[in-house]
């Protein structure tokens, strides 16, 4: 593999233009378009060649995606939300190249969707305390346990799974990371209804599910380190996609404000201006973090984006609800719908959905712990389960 010719924004854009010229997004099936996108190394420009990348600086991804979007193509991650946002980075870092090649292309095209099987009824924030057991049996592992709140598991072909392989050591040391075929016998997915009435996440029951050892990422007992790389991709993904000034959730609030002069009051005007200002400070902070990252510097600004984005998202939709007044007390329909329809999402549903922002991907309390302990280097919380075999830790 060679990196002799430095990849520039121009090369990336040229490659992207070639793909959309040869396969016009309007007339090409998404899977075919994204397949060509992957083959051209544009799925993740910073990945190795042959695995959807060009070994180019990560910053150049934006340029490629812009070309795709302008040609009428999809925002790539929407093709496979969890695949792009959470899984791909871990695969490329930990899977052997042949396995990575086998998995990444259908991930990129959306032909094989992914889900994350981490949380359990007894282990959310304290993920490392999870109880799902994996026991070695010949070339396979046999997995039994229950996962919960697993987004899109009902549509997924693959799951990333964290399971306990040794209950006799402290919790972080006994975990192993697997890739599980959701079509394996013993996997049962039950949709779980959410606050919005819809069911986008699930309970996943694993009953004697056999996973070949070849589908293990990282060493046996080293699953925690692998999962940290996944979680960090997730948090970065949840915080650093900031739309332009006045777009995104604050843009919706501005649109609602403009559409409802009858509801405008000086107090709401003040509140909206403050939210706009916070959205801008957040956007500028993300921009600043990107410039610093371009110089290889990962400063404190990078760590706070998920925390800020999630709380801001809630406040913006709280504002919208208040602007709507009594209209906000009505709801489209609670009839459970499995998949999202294409109709524009009403404010009320977004308002309800925003409650998840401060829970998913690590709660705000946990984010503040992380910022305080990892960035500010404050002393760690008192912990009861340190240096205790997982088996002996009290559980609810």
């Amino acid at each position, binding site marked *: 593999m060679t990196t002799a010719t430095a990849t520039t924004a121009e090369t990336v854009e040229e490659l992207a233009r070639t793909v959309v010229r040869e396969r016009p997004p309007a007339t090409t099936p998404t899977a075919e378009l994204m397949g060509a996108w992957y083959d051209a190394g544009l799925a993740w420009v910073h990945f190795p060649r042959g695995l959807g990348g060009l070994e180019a600086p990560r910053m150049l991804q934006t340029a490629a995606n812009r070309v795709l979007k302008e040609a009428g193509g999809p925002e790539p991650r929407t093709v496979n939300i969890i695949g792009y946002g959470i899984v791909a980075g871990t695969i490329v870092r930990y899977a052997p190249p042949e396995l990575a090649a086998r998995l990444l292309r259908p991930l990129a095209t959306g032909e094989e969707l992914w889900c994350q099987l981490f949380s359990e009824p007894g282990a959310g924030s304290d993920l490392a305390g999870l109880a799902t057991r994996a026991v070695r049996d010949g070339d396979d592992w046999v997995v039994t346990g229950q996962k919960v709140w697993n987004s899109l598991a009902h549509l997924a072909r693959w799951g990333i799974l964290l399971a306990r392989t040794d209950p006799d050591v402290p919790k972080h040391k006994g975990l192993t990371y697997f890739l599980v075929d959701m079509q394996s016998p013993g996997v049962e997915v039950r949709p779980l209804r959410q606050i919005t009435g819809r069911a986008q996440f699930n309970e996943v029951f694993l009953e004697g599910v056999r996973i070949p050892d070849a589908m293990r990422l990282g060493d046996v007992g080293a699953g925690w380190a692998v999962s940290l790389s996944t979680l960090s991709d997730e948090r970065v993904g949840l915080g650093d996609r900031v739309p332009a000034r006045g777009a995104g959730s604050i843009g919706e609030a501005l649109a609602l404000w403009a559409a409802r002069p009858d509801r405008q009051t000086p107090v709401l005007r003040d509140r909206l*201006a403050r939210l706009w200002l916070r959205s*801008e400070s957040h956007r500028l*902070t993300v921009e600043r973090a990107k410039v610093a990252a371009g110089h290889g510097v990962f400063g404190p*600004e990078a760590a706070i984006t998920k925390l800020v984005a999630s709380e801001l998202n809630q406040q913006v939709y709280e504002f919208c609800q208040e602007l709507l007044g009594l209209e906000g007390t009505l709801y489209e329909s609670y009839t459970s719908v499995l998949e999202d329809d294409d109709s524009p999402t009403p404010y009320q549903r977004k308002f309800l959905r925003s409650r998840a922002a401060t829970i998913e991907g690590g709660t705000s309390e946990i984010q*503040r712990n992380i910022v*305080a302990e990892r*960035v*500010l280097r*404050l002393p760690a*919380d008192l912990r009861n389960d340190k240096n205790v075999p997982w088996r002996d830790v009290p559980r609810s």
Partner: protein
Amino acid sequence: MNGREFDFTEELGELRTLVRQFCEEQSPEDVVRTTMDSEAGFDPALWRRLGTDLGVLGLHVPEAYGGGDAGLVAQAVVVEELGAALVCGPVLGTLALAVPVLCALSREDVKETHLPGLVSGDRVGTIAGPLLQGTFDAAGVTVTAVEADGGWRLNGAVGHVPDGAAADLVLVPARTPAGTALFLVEGAPAQLRRTPLTTLDQTRRQAELELVDCPAVQIADETETAQVCEQAARVAAVLLAAEQVGGAQVMLGRTVEHASGRYQFGVPIGSFQAVKHRCADMLVAVEQARSAAYHGAWSLQDGTDDPALAASMAKAVASDSYVKVAAAAIQLHGGTGFSWEYPAHLYFKRAATDAVVLGSTEQHIDRIAALVLDAAPGR
């Protein structure tokens, strides 16, 4: 010296180090405390060294007027460090206000005559007018100008003039028969009476000025004055925002240090979440303020955003952040934070003052609302 937005180049880093070291050596806390109790409230020799030896008091001023021609971002970095160290000096009156006002004038001769002395730190300047609200409010002008003996005479009183007691050069917007023009009073004429005021923030002085038939020269006419003052107010808001970032960063650092070393109940207090989460929120506040302040500096320097909007954004975010961080610092230091010996109160008072000087957060939010919401298409 400056790259694109948020590209803090090596030169900017060196500039920061230079000023920080100077402050550590020449203006440590005990010097700040002695100086703030002195009659003048600042040390002219130290100010001159900043201007002449370090050459950091006119970085956004063109070379032709003795400046460094390095841009507003560089100047903001300097002001951030001066704010971090609470250096006593005419930062607000001279650096943030008088210099930008003079820079914005069309009269070359005035700039050539008066800027070099301010930039070198030899002289102190200020403006006595309704600029402290963050915009130029012509209706708030309290001084009148009449023509007499081929010159001008000013009459009226102005309160809250930053560095007003020390200023060798006082810029005064005043009413003329044709509108509002800008005048300059030089030296210490008897017709300019100064009453030093006791300020909440002892490191930053104000005075009340009374002009009684005070001779003055006109430096900007009725067509130019409002716009000159307006432009200067934006520069001042951005520089003050940088100062707020500097102070807030210090308070965060001191608090984290304290929370890591102070033991209660057998553990460092920083291991309690009520403490550590507040520290995390302080960090968020500092980082947001830094983004908004430097966006303001880069925008005014390169013309990349609406200057009025960018300046109000900078000032509003930085004011809120500094006040919040300084208050949290006192809280998390407990009794220590409340005591005179510990510097938290100095920062808290600076924060409380900065938050209203050059426009309160509320006023800037209102301006932002006018620009973003009221002017929005579709209304």
